[in-house]
């Protein structure tokens, strides 16, 4: 269900103006709220919050620690200074309030921040006291769809008009010819009478040479297409299956620039790149429980709610309760659909290519960072492998294994740089055993 996003200028303008109005009103509100929280600067506070607090706290949702919006209203400021600088000490001292907070939050001790000054804490509190930012309404899928529809109509209209014009032209020519003929006969001009010739197909059938040549052509063309058809059997290029969880490589590898090998870590040392186990996802998704989007990027194909629901699927699979922030122990392993399937008789080792040769993942897997839905980019045929082995030079720099053999072989072949093929990368037994 692919939908092409195509905004008309009106909706864009509308959104822009709405966003402008909102941001203006926000800043004015923030200015109003600032004195209420003390002398803190929310902008500075945000920066401090992101570096120190964001690992465990969110503004509006419970993470490892409680949600912090409006925390300044709940507690005494002096008490908060003490708590933030060293909560353990405060609890130890027997402060009733402190013990209550500690117990209410699952007795997870908070890291002490003695390096924060009172002023810093004021800034943080200013930030946490800021009212909820109204999210700019993202264009929904429905809006995109209408836009697409409108675009389609206008194109059809142009085509229709062109067709009408052409028909009219043809009709006019026909009329003109008719009229000219009538004028000619009226003027007594004798038109040359056409000789009754053989129909073209009969003439063609009579010319045996032509028949021969054209049938050979037909056979050759037919064979070309049959060969083409047969050769693509078993080649699953552009295979793009629907996965049990809609995992967007575009969001992860593209927008958030997560390194491929952070998740596919075994590609460095193993023949398998490995589908990351769910605990790897949870490294980040413990704290990212809903899709926020990125202001610079537009997510037009799927809604925020859609993505958040997909994150929930991950939680169901790994058995994570996002409300209590704890594992339930009920797991449901994800059955991904494998996209890149090499036949059993071909041996391929990722680490040879990734670690030893330093080949970029994208060389074979294509621009994964732009793929909303993962697909097989390359044909994965033997010809494709062999071509690359013929063209690619072996990366020998700093690898003591290659030092001797590369020297000797390059001398033998009279080249500066050896290709993988010259190194023996075309031998059958290197991949088939």
């Amino acid at each position, binding site marked *: 269900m692919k939908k092409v996003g195509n905004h008309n200028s009106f909706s864009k303008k509308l959104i822009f103006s709405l966003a402008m109005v909102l941001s203006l009103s926000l800043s004015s509100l923030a200015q109003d709220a600032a004195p209420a929280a003390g002398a803190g600067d929310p902008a500075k506070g945000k920066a401090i919050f992101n570096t120190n607090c964001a690992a465990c706290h969110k503004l509006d949702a419970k993470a490892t620690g409680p949600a912090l919006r409006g925390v300044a209203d709940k507690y005494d400021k002096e008490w908060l200074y003490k708590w933030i600088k060293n909560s353990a000490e405060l609890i130890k001292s027997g402060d009733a309030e402190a013990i209550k907070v500690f117990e209410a939050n699952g007795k997870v001790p908070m890291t002490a921040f003695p390096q924060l000054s009172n002023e810093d804490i004021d800034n943080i509190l200013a930030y946490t006291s800021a009212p909820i930012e109204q999210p700019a309404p993202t264009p929904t899928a429905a809006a995109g769809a209408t836009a697409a529809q409108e675009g389609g109509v206008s194109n059809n209209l142009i085509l229709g008009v062109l067709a009408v014009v052409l028909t009219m032209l043809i009709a006019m020519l026909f009329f003109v010819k008719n009229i000219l003929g009538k004028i000619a006969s009226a003027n007594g001009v004798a038109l040359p009478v056409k000789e009754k010739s053989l129909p073209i197909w009969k003439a063609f059938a009579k010319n045996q040479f032509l028949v021969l040549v054209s049938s050979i052509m037909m056979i050759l063309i037919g064979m070309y297409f049959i060969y083409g058809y047969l050769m693509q059997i078993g080649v699953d290029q552009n295979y793009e299956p629907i996965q049990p969880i809609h995992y967007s490589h575009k969001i992860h590898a593209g927008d958030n620039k997560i390194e491929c090998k952070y998740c596919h870590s075994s590609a460095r040392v193993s*023949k398998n790149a490995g589908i990351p186990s769910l605990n790897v996802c949870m490294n980040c998704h413990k704290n990212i429980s809903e899709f926020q989007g990125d202001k610079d990027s537009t997510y037009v194909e799927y809604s925020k709610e859609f993505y958040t629901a997909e994150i929930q699927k991950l939680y169901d699979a790994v058995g994570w309760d996002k409300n209590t922030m704890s594992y339930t122990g009920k797991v449901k392993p994800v059955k991904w659909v494998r996209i890149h399937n090499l036949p059993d008789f071909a041996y391929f080792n990722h*680490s040879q290519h990734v670690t030893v040769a330093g080949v970029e993942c994208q060389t074979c897997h294509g621009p994964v960072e732009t793929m909303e839905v993962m697909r097989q980019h390359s044909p994965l045929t033997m010809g494709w492998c062999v071509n690359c082995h013929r063209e690619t030079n072996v990366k020998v720099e700093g690898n*003591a294994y290659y030092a001797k053999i590369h020297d000797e072989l390059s001398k033998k072949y009279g080249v500066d740089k050896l290709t993988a093929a010259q190194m023996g990368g075309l031998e059958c037994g290197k991949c088939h055993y």
Partner: protein
Amino acid sequence: MASNKKYWKSVEELDQNSSIVETLRNNEFVEEIPTDEFLGDAATLSATSTTRRDFLKYVGFSTAAASLAACEGPVVKSIPYVVQPEEIIPGVADYYATTMMDGFDFANILVKTREGRPIKVENNNLPNAKFGANARVHASVLSLYDSMRLKQPKISGKDASWADVNASVAKSLAEAKAKGGQVVLLTNTMASPSTDRLIADFIAKNPTAKHVVYDAVSSSTALDAFQMVYGERALADYDFAKADVIVSVGADILGDWQGGGYDAGYSKGRVPKNGKMSKHIQIEANMSLAGANADKRIPLTVTEQKQALVKIYSIVTGASAGAANLGKYDEAVTKAAQQLKAAGGKGVLVSGLDDVNAQLLVLAINKALSSEAFNPSAARLIRKGDSKAVAQLVADMKAGSVHTLIMNGVNPMYTLANSYDFAEGLKKVKTSVVFSLREDETAVKATIAAPAPHYLESWGDVMITKGHYAIMQPTIRPLFDTKQFQEALMAWTGNTASYYDFLKAVGSSIATGTTWNKLVHDGVYTSEVAPVTGGAADFATAASTLAKAKNEGGLELVLYTKTGMGDGQQANNPWLQEFPDPITRASWDNYVTVSKKDAERLGLENFNVANGGLNGSYTTIEVAGTKLENVPVIIQPGQAVGTIGLALGYGRKEGMKEEMQVGVNAYKLYANQVANQVAKVTKTAGDHEFACVQLQKTLMGRGDIIKETTLEIFNTKDAAEWNIVPMVSLDHKATPATEVDLWDSFDRSIGHHFNLSIDLNACTGCGACVIACHAENNVPVVGKSEVRRSRDMHWLRIDRYYSSEETFDKDVVLKNTAKGLTNSITTLTGMEDPSENPQVAFQPVMCQHCNHAPCETVCPVAATSHGRQGQNQMAYNRCVGTRYCANNCPYKVRRFNWFLYSKNSEFDYHMNDDLGRMVLNPDVNVRSRGVMEKCSMCIQMTQSTILKAKREGREIKDGEFQTACSAACTSGAMVFGDVNDKEGQVAKLAEDERMYHLLEHIGTKPNVFYHVKVRNT
């Protein structure tokens, strides 16, 4: 002639007016055919609008749709871990050090696991891990994935839970305590210090309990003798590397004698170094592996062996004991004794005679020699079984005095000769519990069958010899609802700790000066042992008693264990069943071995039938009233006249796949657990069909296949004389074959160039490499009838050759002196028969990876080609199965897949069930029907070694390259490596003057080379 007879179909027809006749005439069927009833709902059927034509259309359409849909690739699912264990990376193998101990075999091993499942057994190469894996240990990983294992506890044949088992055992123990009934723990030898402590606890808690140790194949007499002299129930250990003269009287020192595992030390002394090698004299009845490797083999009956032992005793110690004369072998035995005496501390004598007096003399002789190879201090603890105690137990059970019987690792219903008595006694035992891997003969009869985990799923410890402590650790979570015997013991004694914690405490107390983690990591811990001197025993009486031994008439039966099957615990293991015996080369069977003379006397014969299969007569063997019927015969060259041999471990029926229920149960003849019996053999009707992989017995004087020489010639003469380079004619001039070439040779001096060196002196023919190759390369098991048709799939075979004269040298002389056509024919025909006491030679043969390979030039589709690294590569997906390559291979090492051997119920071995396929190596293809396969020189292993070095950015060190066979070879016969690495071991071996290539004269330039066998005659 036409006939007017009228045939009456029934009496009714006589009556012209019968209505029945009328009805029958008009209607073929009297009653209406119940079509509607048959088709089901008649109402719906009539209401349906689908006509027959429509139906056919639907069928046609759906068939077309299905075949169109089949063009689509299948959807493959991948399921990653939810939480991936840190140490597991998919695609990367992990190795765990552990110890194999099943009461018969023991070894310090590494277990290779992939994605958490054990797939291969490797040797632990730490310097103090000295017990290598034999063929059975290598195969034991497949026994883990045996689908016939006992999967959950059973009480009286019904599925039960462990709680039920514990409850009923606790009840029974309490009852025994109250009534004063006897509680007996009957176990195999576990040699486990932690288990010993648990058993001691158990006995302390249950005062009426006792522990009986029972070995299926007993060393009871040797243990008794050792106990008399050294006061401890153990066996002396031997290091044959330290011996110059080895005299063995009936001991298969390269087989399972006293636990086995002696080949590594033995082989060290067998490779000529500085003109010296050990001399091995074997006096025996059956042709054993040790006899086949001996420099001098003296075939004697058991009675004669006893006399020979007394004679050696009297010569070595000088005490006169009055041994009888041994006829034509007397001189040879005397000479052996003299050589032994002359060697002094460098000599050693061992014996496998199942007689306390004989075993006492062994100790006396070695003490008199003060033999360096004989080591009673670091005694072996892996055999503890007491035949007398077992006999007493059976008597007690029959008397009804045993209340509760708890068994672990034993199968007395199968392994006891008097299993009938045992069964009768078992009926009188109130509660009998057996911890067993499978529902075997005993588990079926016992009241409680408790599933035990495989050793790869268990924790444990083994004190193999004194001062050699080894740890067993699990390499996979238990596959079934199993519990270790130790855990159960702890539960029954009210010990709430886990066995792991208990083991950790025991292990840490034994292995002092190391940490528990290091102990588990290494799998082995050694410490110094205090030397023991031992007391004196009445050796003189022992000698004089032994000298009185007389032939009691009839043939002397020597029961032995086969290299493949051992005591029969792993009889359901297809790798071991298909493993060809090193001596007879027969698989899937046991058989009685008889000498040619006895065979002729009894009218027994072996012959080959049209398809090449070997057939043999059937016999009945009778020992002291017990008859064993339909025992097939193999005529064994070298079998002492007047003796027969029969292997234990076959003929199991319970808890076994039908295909594996082969052979006869020789334990029936193992009366009182004595391996030497007197038997009567009678021929019975019928012929047995063997699955024998080698039909050619002799070399026919072709000395260039196995080159051999004597130590004397080797030391004194030039290599050109004993390692003759074959000559061919070039321009009508004799030219060494190595210098003539049809092809231009490629330059192989750059990069790796793999060579495999096989030293025929060190190779004992043990076959560990054969099973290791099976495990590494997913070699299929094809079954008995296919092996019989010579369709076995072993990539590596160990050829065994007999000489037709006394020695192979004399064969060569005989062949060369044959003149004229008739004389040549008669001579050569005669040479097909091995001599009565032949010399034997083993030769492992796998693909020779010829640089000028005949197979490569004939492949029409270029499926087999040569790599720069010296490997002859085989692309299975390219092969179309013309089999030209196999026909053109001079070494006959190529194997053709006549059938699909995986997921095919016609071949119901491990590759046909989901559990059995777990053992497959994911880095190697499983070949399909119609393709050729062969040894790849473990290209997956060499490639992964190279890749590892590349990843780490370093050069490859010598010894890093291995193949499955070279890694499994504990005797050091097989060495693999890069011949371009001039400092490497293989490069040096290739330059050795003993080096030669197989069939050098045909100019294939193989990458496998052999070393001339030197005999110390």
